[in-house]
C-alpha cells in the first residue's frame, strides 16, 4: 500500500506531546514495544505525524528511518489525518462478491475522492478496508464506525446526505 506524507499542517498541542511522552515512558522496559507505541500515538493524534515520529525516535534512540519503515508497513497506521466523516467500505471477499467494489467506486464518484483519500476541506475521507466481519450484512460500509449493511449503489446518496 503506497503511503504519502500529509500536506496538512501539523497542529499538535503540548497536551498531546505530554501524552506521547507518557506512552513512551510506559513501554521503556517492554520488549518489542514499537508497535504498541505507534498504535497509541495514533490514538492521541488521530494519525501518525512525522513530528510525533521524530519525538519517538529521539526518546527511544531508534533511527527515524526504522520507525517510518514500521509506520508504512502496516495498513492500520495512517500518515494522513482522517476526515471528520470517515467512510470505510469493506472490500473483504464476502462483501466483494456481493458488489462492495461498486459501492466504493460510487462513493469515490459522489465525493470526488476516486481511489480513496481525504477531501480538501477535511470533511470526508474514504478508504477501502479489509473484512470487518459483518459478512452476514454484506455488502457493508462504515461511517465513523456505524455499520450500514445490505446496501446497493442506490443507497449511497442517502447515506452521504445524513452527514453533509
Amino acid at each position, binding site marked *: 500500500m503506497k503511503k504519502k506524507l500529509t500536506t496538512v499542517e501539523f497542529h499538535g498541542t503540548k497536551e498531546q506531546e505530554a501524552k506521547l511522552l507518557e506512552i513512551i515512558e510506559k513501554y521503556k522496559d517492554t520488549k518489542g514495544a514499537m508497535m504498541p507505541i505507534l*498504535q497509541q500515538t495514533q490514538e492521541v493524534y488521530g494519525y501518525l505525524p512525522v513530528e510525533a515520529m521524530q519525538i519517538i525516535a529521539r526518546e527511544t534512540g531508534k533511527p527515524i528511518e526504522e520507525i517510518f519503515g514500521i509506520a508504512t508497513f*502496516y495498513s492500520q497506521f495512517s500518515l494522513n489525518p482522517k476526515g471528520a466523516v470517515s467512510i470505510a467500505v469493506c472490500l473483504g*471477499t464476502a462483501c466483494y*462478491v456481493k458488489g462492495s467494489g461498486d459501492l466504493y467506486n460510487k462513493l469515490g464518484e459522489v465525493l470526488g475522492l476516486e481511489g480513496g483519500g481525504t477531501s480538501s476541506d477535511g470533511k470526508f475521507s474514504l478508504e477501502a478496508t479489509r*473484512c470487518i*466481519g459483518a459478512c*452476514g450484512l454484506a455488502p457493508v460500509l462504515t461511517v465513523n464506525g456505524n455499520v450500514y449493511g445490505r446496501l446497493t*449503489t442506490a443507497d449511497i446518496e442517502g447515506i452521504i446526505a445524513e452527514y453533509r
Partner: protein
Amino acid sequence: MIRTHVLICGGTGCTSSGSMALKEALEKELEVKGLTEEVKLVTTGCFGLCALGPVMIVYPDGTFYSMVKPEDIPEIVEEHLLKGRPVTRLEYHEKTGDHHAVTSLSETTFYKKQHRVALRNCGVINPEVIDEYIARDGYAALGKVLTEMTPEDVIKTITDSGLRGRGGGGFPTGRKWQLARVIVQDGGKKYVACNADEGDPGAFMDRSILEGDPHAVLEAMAIAGYAIGADEGYIYVRAEYPIAIQRLEIAIKQAREYGLLGNDIFGTGFNFDIQLRLGAGAFVCGEETALMTSIEGNRGEPRPRPPFPAEKGLFQRPTVLNNVETYANVPQIILKGADWFASMGTEKSKGTKVFALGGKITNTGLVEIPMGTTLREVIEEIGGGIPNGKKFKAAQTGGPSGGCIPASLIDTPIDYDNLIAIGSMMGSGGLIVMDEDNCMVDIARFFLDFTVDESCGKCTPCRIGTKRMLEILDKIIDGKGELEDLDRLEELARYIKAGSLCGLGQTAPNPVLSTLRYFRDEYIAHVVDKKCPAGVCKHLLRFVINEDKCKGCTACARVCPAGAISGSVKNPHSIDPAKCLKCGACIEKCKFGAIEKK
C-alpha cells in the same frame, strides 16, 4: 428466582446489525415490567446464523428469534416473558421446511449436521464471566494436566488425537509441541504464541471463538506451556477486532484473579502468564515467522526456515505457535481423550473444522462440521443453498492462498488432503460461495490485487511477479488480452511459487491457477470473444435498451453523464456505444428494467 434466560448474541455480526440496542431496550422493558428478578439477560458469543441477526434465544423453551428490532421488544416481554406465549411472527422459520417455526435450534438443517467442538461454548455462555466457562468444565483440562499428567503424556495425547493446525497448513500439532519440548538450548526461556491475526478476507472463525469463548484459548495456551516448558505466552490479535480484544483482556484479568494464570497455578508450582499484542493490518503477519518478527516490534517480514520456530522463534527462543481454533480444541481433547477426537473426521484429518460461510449463500454465518462432510452438504443443506434462484458456480476456500472449487467437484469430502488435490486448500476456514453472476477472472483479479497490496516486498518474485500477473489480468479484463497471456500467467505463477520465501508468495498465484484450471473457458471468452459471460467486466459489456420495455420516460437520457442516450418522449430510446461510459447510472434510474448489459 431466575425463571427465564434470554441469550442475546454479542458477536461482531449481530452487534453490527444492532444487538446492543436490542439489549438496552430489553433491559429497559424488563425494568418497566418489574421482571429483573425473574428474567436474566446473557450476552453471548456468536450463534453462527449471522445472516439472521440480531438473534436471541429464550430459555428454558428455546424459542429462537431472528432479525429482532428494538420496537419488537415490548411485545416479546409482554407476550412471551410475561404471559408465556412466544411471538410467532418473530420466530425463525426455515425457508426450506414446511413453514412452521422450529421448536429447537438443533433441529434446523443449519445445525443438524454440525458438530460443535471448537465452538461448543459460542452462543451458550457469557464470555465475560469466567464462572460460566468453569461451569462448562472450563479449566478442568488444565487442572488434569497439571496434577495427573506429565508433559510427555500431554504431547502423546495431542499427537494421538490427530489434531492438525487449523490455520491452514495442517501441520500435526502434537509433533510441533514435541519439537519445542525436546529442544534444550540452555535451559532458558521458551514461548507459547497464539496466531489470532486472521487476515483472510471473509473469514471470521477465530474472531468468533475469541469473542465467544476466550478462556478456552487461554487454557489451551497454558496447557501448551506446561507441555513444552514455557512460562510466557503471547496472543497476536488483529487490531480490527475490538470486541475480541476487549473480551480477551477481560478473560486474562479474570483468569489472573482466579489464579488460573500467573504463579503457582493450582498450587503445583507451574507459572504461566499471557500478554496481548495487537496486529496493525498486515496479511503477511499471519505467516508464523513474520508474526514473530512483528511481535518483536519490527516490520513483519518473514524469516527463512530453518531454523524453525520450535528451535529459534520469538526473541530467538524456542516457540510453539498455534492458531486460535487449534487451541480451542485442546481442552476438549485432554478431557475426553485422544480416541474421542480421532473418532471424528477422515483418515488423515481428524476432528471438526469451523468455516465462515459467506457470499451468495442463504445462511451466511459460522458452521462447524466433522472433517469429511461434503461441500454439497455444507452449501445446500447447512448453508440453505443459493438465494434468488441463481445457480451455484464455485466455492472459494483458503482465501488469497486458496482456489475456486467448481460445481463439478461439489461432492468432494472436505479435508486437508482432498482440497489440496483439487487445487485449493483448507486455509483458515473462509468459504465464499459464488453464483453465475460472479466473473471468475474478476475474482482471480480481486485476490491478486490483495496479494500485490499485502506482499511485504522481501522476495522479488512475489513483489514484482504478482504485480506483473495483475497487469496481465487487467489487460484481459479491459478487453486487450491475447491467448498467449494465459501461458504467461502460468509461467509467472511457477516462478513466484518456486522463488518466494514464505507461504504468502508460494500460494499467491493459486487463485489464478485454479480459475485457469476450472474456468478456462471464461478466460477464453474474455480474450478471444471479448465478452464477459457473467456480465461483470465493464469494458467488455455493451449497454442496450430493450425497445419493448422502454416507455420513453427520458429518465435515463437525463441522468446519463456522457449524453450517450437519445430518443424522444414516449418513444424507445437508444444508447450510442461510442459515447457510453458504462457507468450504470441509467440502469439505476430506469423503472422498467429496460436497460440490459450484454
